[in-house]
């Protein structure tokens, strides 16, 4: 690693750490939910370390407890993850130069916050000329720094939750803390009216369609929010969010 690459890696790590409390809280709540479900300690740890997708894990737990067949749980898991498919659309041009195995890892480690922060800092992908000039691939270093911070903070929260769950009574309603923590990420994004319209739409649709199978309410909410966001956005084309 060159000194400059190191600098970008560390900057990325710090950038993600600013959301540390939120990630830690979400991880902790997810860990508790896993430990209090039908999973054994080892199963919960394996799920945390391998699956590494909180919302999909939380969606799977009641289905596992209900004894649903694996394929149904996997479909639900993918549906909850469909938002990542949309995110991958946004990242594709940025990292298409990497070899296949590195793209797989890059995708796997890019969760919600990673995408959000990356696309905020680098809304446009590099032209071939810019890419040639940026032979140190500093954007990639920045991204990897963020990914490492996200993974470490998440796993610390999640594993602490798994191990401490038996000490925490259900009556505390701690899972609500995870919801509150997300607010801190969402509110700063509501900086203009189109964003607020999109957010309002997503809220109404996600709640109104909550009962439909495979958690498809998430995809429906995103789809309608994107349409409303486009219609209400008066800013010139190509401006950044």
């Amino acid at each position, binding site marked *: 690693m060159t000194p400059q690459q190191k600098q970008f890696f560390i900057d990325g790590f710090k950038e993600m750490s600013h959301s540390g409390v939120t990630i830690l809280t979400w991880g902790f709540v997810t860990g508790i939910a896993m430990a209090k479900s039908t999973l054994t300690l080892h199963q919960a740890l394996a799920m945390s370390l391998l699956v590494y997708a909180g919302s999909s894990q939380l969606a799977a737990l009641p289905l596992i407890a209900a004894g649903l067949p694996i394929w149904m749980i996997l479909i639900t898991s993918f549906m909850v993850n469909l938002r990542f498919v949309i995110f*991958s659309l946004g990242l594709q041009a940025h990292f298409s130069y990497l070899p296949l195995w590195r793209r797989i890892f890059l995708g796997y480690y890019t969760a919600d916050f990673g995408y959000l922060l990356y696309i905020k800092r680098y809304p446009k992908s590099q032209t071939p000329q810019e890419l040639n000039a940026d032979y140190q691939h500093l954007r990639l270093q920045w991204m990897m720094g963020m990914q490492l911070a996200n993974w470490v903070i998440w796993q610390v929260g999640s594993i602490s939750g798994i191990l401490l769950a038996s000490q925490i009574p259900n009556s505390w309603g701690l899972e609500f803390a995870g919801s509150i923590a997300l607010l801190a990420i969402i509110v700063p994004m509501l900086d203009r009216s189109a964003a607020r319209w999109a957010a309002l739409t997503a809220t109404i649709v996600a709640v109104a369609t909550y009962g439909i199978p495979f958690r498809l309410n998430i995809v429906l909410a995103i789809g309608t*929010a994107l349409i409303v966001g486009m219609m209400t956005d008066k800013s010139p084309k190509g401006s950044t969010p």
Partner: protein
Amino acid sequence: MQVDLNIALLVIGMTVMTICSRSFFILLGERIKISPLMLEAIRFAPLAAMIAILAPEVFLPTGASSVAQFDIHLPNIWGGIAALVAFYFSRKMLFTLVVGMAVFTAIRFWV
């Protein structure tokens, strides 16, 4: 569901789902070119995604199965609003957590 082996398979399957979804279009590498209009359209996707996950947890009771279970007396709603106000004015994460949880707990136990 039969225990161990099935859970092991499920964990592996869900890991594959994480990889497939997060790498979906990245996997195609240079074989596709995504139109600027499409990139424009997905600008609010991260915002909408997080709200789509959060909103039902705030507006519906835990373990709810449909919107029919909406109830304005739900502590989640008032805790959520309190947290929103707290964050809007303070921009401090821990303070927001404390206020949100305090209102949530107060309504659960005393109302």
